């Protein structure tokens, strides 16, 4: 009896997997499910006939390599990662920029009475991902000779809470809220203060897929745009879904962060040209900064980095 059922099931499963393989779209995130990805979870994929699988990430998920290598169809990266990747021959292209302004910042204790980002580097400890361009721009501009540089704890604020002279890189929409919750009073400096402002939480695709099937990419971007609109209007449902997947952030924080991040996502530019829009000017500025840092040897044409669909 079991044998007969099994034999009947085999071709059926085969058919299903064959279907799945051809139409299942994989979208890799570069962090755990949090409000910064809200619109991707809120997007009505099945309504438009798309089968999308969102793959949560974590510290160090190499999304830009995964997209380039073809192990996922789409991935979330930041604009600076795209510039670097393209300079190494990795053909990835940006399609949709969720964060119009870079939400990276430095978080310090308010009791230090610091007035600008340079002050943070005058003493104490700072936790940074030293390889990131903004960290190196900071070093160039202010120098790290008076501050102890340690690796970024990746969202964990324990060291920060234990030491008044400890500052760390943060997402303006994330760690400061968690710190305030724990009773600390913090002062935050946006990295864009020093003029470094790449698009962040950018939906990217490999140049090859884009050339092969531009319509598929266009369809996905449209649904994503719808999803972000829906999330901005009402984040509750998507927040609940993400909270199930990421219990390290409580429901209240989800709601608070979703609110605080709005001005980064919806700006004058997006009201004019649509959510996720990108401009050539911004890309050119970014490429110029990389050239100055010496991270890329020759200028990359800005128009190859992104496509507005």
């Amino acid at each position, binding site marked *: 009896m079991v044998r007969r059922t099994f034999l009947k099931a085999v071709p059926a499963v085969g058919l299903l997997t064959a279907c799945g393989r051809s139409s299942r779209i994989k979208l890799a995130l570069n962090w755990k499910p949090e409000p910064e990805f809200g619109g991707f979870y809120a997007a009505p994929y099945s309504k438009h006939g798309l089968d999308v699988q969102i793959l949560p990430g974590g510290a*160090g998920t190499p999304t830009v390599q995964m997209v380039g290598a073809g192990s996922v169809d789409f991935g979330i990266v930041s604009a600076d*990662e795209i510039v*670097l990747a393209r300079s*190494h021959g990795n053909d990835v292209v940006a399609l949709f920029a969720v964060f119009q302004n870079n939400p990276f910042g430095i978080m310090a204790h308010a009791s230090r009475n610091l007035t600008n980002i340079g002050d943070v580097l005058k003493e104490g400890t700072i936790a940074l*991902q*030293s*390889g990131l361009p903004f960290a190196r721009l900071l070093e160039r501009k202010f120098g790290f000779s008076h501050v102890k540089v340690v*690796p970024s704890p990746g969202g964990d604020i*324990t*060291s920060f809470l234990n030491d008044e002279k400890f500052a760390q890189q943060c997402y303006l929409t994330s760690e400061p809220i968690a710190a305030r919750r724990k009773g600390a009073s913090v002062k935050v400096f946006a990295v864009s203060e020093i003029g470094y402002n790449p698009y962040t939480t950018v939906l990217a695709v490999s140049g090859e897929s884009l050339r092969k099937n531009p319509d598929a990419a266009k369809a996905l971007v449209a649904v994503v745009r719808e999803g972000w609109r829906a999330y901005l209007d009402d984040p509750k449902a998507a927040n609940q879904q993400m909270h199930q997947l990421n219990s390290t952030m409580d429901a209240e924080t989800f709601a608070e962060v979703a609110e605080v991040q709005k001005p980064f996502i919806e700006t004058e530019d997006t009201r004019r040209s649509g959510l996720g829009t990108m401009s050539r000017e911004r890309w050119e500025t970014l490429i110029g900064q990389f050239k100055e840092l010496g991270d890329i040897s020759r200028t990359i044409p800005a128009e190859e980095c992104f496509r507005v669909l």
Partner: protein
Amino acid sequence: MKKTLLPPLIPFIGLTLMAEFLVRQGFVRPYLVPAPSAVFRAMIDSRVELLQALLSTSAGSLAGFALSAFTGIAIAVLLSSSRAVQRAFYPYAIFFQTVPLIAVAPLLVIWFGFGIQTVIASAFVASVFPVIANTLSGILSTDPPLRDLFRLYGASPLATLFKLRLPAALPQVFTGLRVSAGLAVIGAIVGEFIAGGGLGSVVDIARTQQRIDKVFAAVLLASVLGLGLFGLINLLSHLTLRRWHASEQAE
């Protein structure tokens, strides 16, 4: 000399040449696997940085390893004293083996701060268990007739420990140390990911810069460090056990 160095060298050269060919011809993308020549160039270009990092990781892993060796042997001696003590405390020793180091490392930073002390702690946690397990096994597996001999002449438990059980356990102690050496390097690098410094930090930073050639260069140096430590233990083992067994004699 020729017999030990030449055989492993041949496949290494072969693989390197093949990798170079595959990357140059475009079969493998350079941002996924760097060409060996690129790795070599990265080593030359960043030699000062890499050398400093290597020295730092070496210090951290050696210190962690030494701590493991002494503490591990001491713990094994304590555990060997009675079955009751063993049953009560051995499970905790196993904990060192099974705890996922990458999860514990952030805790180590909170306790010990950012600096080489955390790297040493991490190397210790990663490498102490094999020393305990192997030393204990060696001490407990002393030949019963030899133990009888010591009893026959009224030897105290301490005399039996130092004159019989510990020396008899030496081959197994060295087995434990061999395994532990490599683990100490891994532990040090994991510690460096979280606490900064050394080759771990080079790997982490190069990764965020998408400098995969530099990542490979650092990883290669870390492997060389592990191999070096392993070789050192082997040398020590050979010198110590030289006159012992017929098997050691054959080498």
